[in-house]
């Protein structure tokens, strides 16, 4: 199994404040890495940097970021300790990866879906980011929907016509549509009841394993992480 992401010794500052100090994480093909920690410990921030995105105003002080399965490049070279310009350049450079090679399964599924477009159109758009377009897009769309446990009629539905659980499944289908190698799931359990949390997390895991992609999971739930993660990165309150 090759490594998908290698993030080493990351430190991020906001003004004088140190948000994250010396964090490393890695995700291997077909494996799950979980990031845990109390609120404000920089979980989302670390995961976002791993996806090649440094929010505006933040400064990376040290660190290196490689996607060995994609290229040998160190995406943070010149950015770490560099000026804001370099950070903006990184965001632009990695944009081609996000939504394609890197994918994101959002926290609040309903608000992440476009309310004015049917699910089918959103999936088609997301699928268009693939490097190798599928031979039959319609069949591929059907396969995706079936994979996440929705029926074909859902392709014609607007997000407002889906239930909470269906929206979670739909958002997962959109995340998987570009055939990504790495998926970031930011607290997929937010707002879900315990049973649905388990169902959605298991689905996420199954789909990622089946498609052979790595999963970077941000979670608060010990029992979820304990059961599905291959590696756990714990961040302290002021790591």
């Amino acid at each position, binding site marked *: 199994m090759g490594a998908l992401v290698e993030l080493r010794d990351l430190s991020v500052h906001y003004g004088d404040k140190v948000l994250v100090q010396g964090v490393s994480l890695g995700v291997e093909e077909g494996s799950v890495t979980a990031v845990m920690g109390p609120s404000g410990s920089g979980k989302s921030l670390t995961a976002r940097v791993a996806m090649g995105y440094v929010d505006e105003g933040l400064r990376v002080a040290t660190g290196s970021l490689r996607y060995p399965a994609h290229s040998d490049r160190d995406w943070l070279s010149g950015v770490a300790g560099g000026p804001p310009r370099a950070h903006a350049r990184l965001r632009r450079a990695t944009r081609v990866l996000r939504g394609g090679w890197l994918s994101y399964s959002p926290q609040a599924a309903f608000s992440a879906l476009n309310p004015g477009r049917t699910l089918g159109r959103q999936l088609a758009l997301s699928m268009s980011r693939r490097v190798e377009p599928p031979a039959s897009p319609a069949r591929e769309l059907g396969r995706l929907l079936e994979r996440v446990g929705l029926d074909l009629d859902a392709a014609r539905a607007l997000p407002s016509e889906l239930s909470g659980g269906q929206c979670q499944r739909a958002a997962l289908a959109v995340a998987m549509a570009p055939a990504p190698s790495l998926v970031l799931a930011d607290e997929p359990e937010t707002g*879900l*009841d*315990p*049973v649905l*949390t388990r169902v959605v997390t298991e689905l996420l895991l199954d789909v990622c394993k089946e498609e052979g992609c790595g999963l970077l999971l941000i979670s*608060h*739930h010990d*029992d*979820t992480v304990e059961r599905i993660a291959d590696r756990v990165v714990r961040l302290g309150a002021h790591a």
Partner: protein
Amino acid sequence: MICEARDLHKTFVQAGTFPWSPRREVPAVRGVDLTVAPGEVVALVGQSGSGKTTLARMVLGLEEPDQGTIDLEGVRWHGLSERARQPRRVRYQYVPQDALSALDPQQTVLEHVEETLRVLVGCDRHDARARAMAMLERLGLPARANSLPRQLSGGEQRRVTLARVLALEPRLVVADEPTSGLEPDRRQAVLRDLVGNLPESAGCILVTHEMAAARAWAHRALVMLGGRVIEEVDLRRDEPTHPYAKLLFAPWDHDVPDAPLATSGCPWRHGCPLMDDALADTCARGLPALTPLSPGHGVACHFHHRSSS
């Protein structure tokens, strides 16, 4: 009893996508009894769509039940006109799910609490301010008294909605998922502020799908499934026994059935590990009343009903 509700039913009629689409009936609550004793915290737990919120709203008169009776503090509450309810409303208060949208973006924290006291209790300006500050101090918010809602953290916004309700010294507080949207490590503190500051011998209904919250703060939990209460349990003494309640409290330790909920009979019968051939007919016919297993612990299940009789 602070609240005594018997056999509540509520069905919503859902319009289709277009005006000419057929309407659909969605039964939300199907025959629920709910009592809250003075000083008692009752948790309503269940999955999304199990009817928790509808039940809680009916108790406050925010929804009218189709059938059933509600008495608050021994006086009839259901089916009254708003004019008849108005003078009593101040005693029965609601903590909303989404704190930020429940607060006025242009009012400070102190003004929120003060205005509530002046309008609902009729305090004069001086008195209202003193009582509001006292309540903010109890909830650890005095430093934020002059802040606007958007300047507060999620937990602080939540505390403002609590302060506003608790300052009225209500007899019954209905909190609809008071911790949703908060970081998990901040939830306990908000619940401690709510339950710890309830007026003496007031009742509280806590709607939640955080099982840890129900365990820590409620005297009694009602487990809801498909608009019915399938188990009533004191979590400090007993463990849930209904297969659905077990799944809800420890989702990773039990199998999640693929089958959907049954629309008639016992809603859980399609995936129930306790059902055998002898019970199949009985379970398809209906749900029994809560079978008492021990004092304060009852389960609505034919399996337990059979073994106890």
